[in-house]
């Protein structure tokens, strides 16, 4: 294989608590090529924090330690915060899990996208406006001119997510970390948004880390999948083989998904085993 786009060895993230330091990511390894890598795993298993660590965005008082973290051959494990700024946006971008949290509540969403344009592309007012309408239309926003003038609280759940994705389309990053980017979208718009991401991977050689709770979607959209539990990768497989994973935790996840036409009176839930966290 050619040089990996991203390589992480032994990533650890800890938060101080009253009873000492609590490690929430506990020795994660990851190697990413020009591919779509899915990350699944239960709530609290450390998926979002792993993404944030790659961006240098773990919130204080979180502490990050890692033996090796390199992006396109460059060691980024010891970058100063200012150097991360240089990396972010154009080279590595992240679509955060909660759009309403990450958008500025008192600024029209159109202006927020224009700001991204000015930051990464430069250009004049008119180009920024035109490009903003273009990316809004690309993510299937029905009426870009009207939505340009809305504030975040006036967007539907799925429109907020699409605004976040539209923003990311402007800098054209080499690595995109998308954290639950389509959980509020209906399946037909989801299909169209994922096709845009697939084109970026195929045509521009972008690498994608796709964090999701939707196992069926990850199995059909990604190339490879990591399954996380309690801050670690417990299994990895080809996405097409996700329904054949061995780990009892992964099997438990798969069986708790309702299927179309499901007539089970009750859905099975996970019985967690302390051994999985070892």
């Amino acid at each position, binding site marked *: 294989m050619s040089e990996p786009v991203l390589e992480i060895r032994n990533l650890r993230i800890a938060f101080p608590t009253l009873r000492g330091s609590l490690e929430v990511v506990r020795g994660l390894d990851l190697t990413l090529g020009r591919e779509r890598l899915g990350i699944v795993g239960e709530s609290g298993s450390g998926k979002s924090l792993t993404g944030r660590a790659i961006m240098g965005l773990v919130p204080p008082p979180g502490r990050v330690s890692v033996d090796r973290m390199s992006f396109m051959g460059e060691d980024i494990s010891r970058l100063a915060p200012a150097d991360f700024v240089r990396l972010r946006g154009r080279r590595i971008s992240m679509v955060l899990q909660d759009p309403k949290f990450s958008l500025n509540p008192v600024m029209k969403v159109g202006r927020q996208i224009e700001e991204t344009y000015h930051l990464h592309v430069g250009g004049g007012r008119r180009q920024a406006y035109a490009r903003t309408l273009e990316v809004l239309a690309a993510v299937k926003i029905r009426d870009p001119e*009207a939505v340009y003038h809305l504030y975040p609280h006036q967007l539907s759940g799925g429109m907020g997510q699409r605004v976040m994705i539209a923003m990311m389309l402007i800098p054209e990053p080499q690595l995109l970390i998308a954290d639950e980017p389509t959980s509020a979208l209906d399946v*037909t718009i989801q299909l*169209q948004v994922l*096709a845009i991401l697939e084109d970026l991977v195929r045509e521009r050689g972008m690498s994608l880390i796709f964090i999701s709770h939707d196992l069926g979607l990850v199995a059909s959209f990604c190339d490879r999948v990591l399954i996380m539990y309690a801050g670690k990768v417990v299994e990895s497989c080809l996405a097409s083989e996700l329904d054949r994973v061995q780990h009892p935790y992964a099997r438990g996840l798969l069986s*708790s998904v309702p299927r179309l036409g*499901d007539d089970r009176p*009750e859905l099975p839930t996970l019985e967690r085993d302390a051994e999985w966290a070892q």
Partner: protein
Amino acid sequence: MSAATVEISGLSISFGSGVRQINAVKDVTLAVADGEAFGLVGESGSGKSTVLNAVAGLVDRYSGTIRVAGEAVTPKRSLAQRRLVQMVFQDPYGSLHPRQTVDKALSDPAVIHGLDGIGARVERVLADVGLKPEHRFRYPHELSGGQRQRVAIARALILEPRILLLDEPTSALDVSVQAEVLNLLRRLRIEHGFTSIMVSHNLAVVSYMCDRIAVMNRGRVLETGTGDALAKGQFVHAYSRQLFRASSGYDRSLLGDLWQDAAER
């Protein structure tokens, strides 16, 4: 006691004015029977949350009529009318106050509605949603996502509503917590027999949970049918059929024939 029905007739809702007016809901008519579990699916931005908000009395201006338990209601509601209908919001993180403990989030509505024995009610509803006594005095950030969503459901249940509105109650949850919440909602429905309207993008989830389902697109209801028919792919509108086909995972070949008809009238 009158039947806990919801009848929506000719409901239209728009936001803004002039060229920037957004017609979010257009002439929607729906009737939900007493004890029925009703589902709403459809395009993102098609007005599903807005319909629920209107039923909950949270939309100030609309045309058409909304009847709850046989009675015509307006946004100005009596305490009794408000208690009848409770809603679990789409955003589980935003709907709880970050500096309020679980205990406060649950007892406040009970105080407002002048209920008695509030401590015992809080204990009971926590047990109902599968939370432990130790969770009672925690803050939202000290709970996992799934636990926060249970608190949101508990807050709706503490007033013993007869009608429960659920806006994407599990889309932010991992599949195992989703299974816990769905089992809980089904069990509570058997025990308390409430009427519910649930919005979800997940066709398997809505058809598992709901007796009847309406498909929305661009503010309109395109068609209504049984959960069973939805699961079997028997809905007939071109858009509903697409939803059905696209719901078995990412399949790029479906892109070619997406229903683009604006149906804008």
